[in-house]
């Protein structure tokens, strides 16, 4: 089980801020494929992953990064702080 979090418009499209997901995905990209296949709202959120960022256990990461040992995955658009 993995804690998956969504922020900003990714959260709004998917409709929840976070959820527990039971997955065998080996990489972030595989997890995205799995979610996209699940329901239209995921497909809408992940339509263009180049517009998204991903953090693994609260560290910025890449879509080809492995998920082994990861407890928390977060998807969000580029940050706009400051």
């Amino acid at each position, binding site marked *: 089980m993995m804690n998956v*979090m969504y*922020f*900003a*418009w990714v*959260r709004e499209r998917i409709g929840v801020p976070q959820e527990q997901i039971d997955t065998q995905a080996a990489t972030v990209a595989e997890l995205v494929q799995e979610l996209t296949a699940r329901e239209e709202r995921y497909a809408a959120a992940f339509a263009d992953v180049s517009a998204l960022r991903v*953090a693994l256990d*609260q*560290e*910025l990461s890449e879509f080809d990064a492995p998920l082994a040992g990861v407890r928390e995955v*977060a998807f*969000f*658009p*580029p*940050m*706009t*702080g*400051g």
Partner: protein
Amino acid sequence: MLIRVQSEVFDAGAELNAFAQGRHDVGAVVSFTGVVRDTQGDLQEMQIEHYPGMTEAAISAITQDAVTRWDLADALVIHRFGALKPGVPIMMVATAAAHRVAAFEAADFLMDYLKSRAPFWKKEIAADHATWVAAKDADEDALKRW
């Protein structure tokens, strides 16, 4: 090094004074205050979302990097989240160093990194629309300066 992520209003002047006082080894203090700007005159509020936990970790790492790189006497970062009205401070950064070049560069660096690497997202709420602020290519490009 002082880092605060909070929904409460803060007083930039009082923070600057508290940060700067009683340092005899410091010749230069630079502050940056980011303010909710009402570009079109129709902004009702700015909603700032963040990623609790990661926010503090990312700001700490960036700030520690600045302190080491510019040999700062101290650094301060305060960033708000929640719903903010036009004209109020969103965040502030302050740096203290022996000389002005280090204080300026470190504050500039902190702002560039906080803007694109600290997990905050801004949404503008106006009477007839609600829009997520888009990241600018210029902000990502700015990181290459450092």
